[in-house]
């Protein structure tokens, strides 16, 4: 129940975030000056915070989406399975987000 609502909410968040991706690609196609303006936007504290939130929404929507596809295939329909797999979506998305950011911060020499 809750996982389904969050799936929709993260879907809306990702749709809005996708527009930032469009902005980034247009900036990259527009030359170094425009790209640098975009990079400064992303690198600002607000940009980093939005990227962090966006990455969690992405991790959640990805894991829960795979869960939904498996359920479409008829797997995990019993109520205990359903509840257990919804915890995988919630905890797994947090773990995945932390791992990804740990990797990024290490590679970019900030941790």
């Amino acid at each position, binding site marked *: 129940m809750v996982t389904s609502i969050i799936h*929709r909410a993260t*879907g*809306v968040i*990702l*749709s809005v975030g*996708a*527009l930032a*991706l*469009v902005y980034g*690609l*247009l900036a*990259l*196609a527009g030359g*170094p000056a425009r*790209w*640098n303006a975009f*990079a400064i936007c*992303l*690198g600002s504290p607000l940009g980093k915070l939005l990227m962090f939130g966006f990455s969690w929404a992405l991790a959640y929507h*990805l894991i829960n*989406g*795979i869960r*939904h*596809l498996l359920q*479409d295939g008829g797997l995990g329909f019993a109520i205990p399975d359903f509840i257990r797999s919804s915890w995988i979506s919630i905890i797994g998305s947090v773990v995945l987000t932390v791992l*990804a950011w740990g*990797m*990024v911060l290490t*590679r*970019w020499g900030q941790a």
Partner: protein
Amino acid sequence: MNGNANDLRTPLKRARGWGSAKDGTHHFIWQRITAVATGLTGLWLLGMVLSLRTADYTVVHALVADPVNATALVAFLLGMFWHARLGLQVIIEDYVHTPLTGAVAQLAVLFICALAAIASVLAVLRIALGS
């Protein structure tokens, strides 16, 4: 079609499969197909982004211009914006109960997703073909 006196189908047969979207199972199936496409190409892009060590213009430009990456990116953009439109469509159908507001919202979502897909694909083409 419903008012056709020559229609021998039962009312149940006529209604079956249309649901609230008025579009049968077509929507459901394409939502799943675009989900798989977005997931697979998205994982490729995730690896691409995580492999970056700098936001330097020439490095990112070369990464996106690589033919394999550009292909994955275009496939991702088309599948993802289609998937976004299908998902937002269902959310509007479920939560907006005034026909006019609903229709305007549906049109806005469709146009924004289509424009975003066109703009981003053109940007990738421009980067990949180097003009």
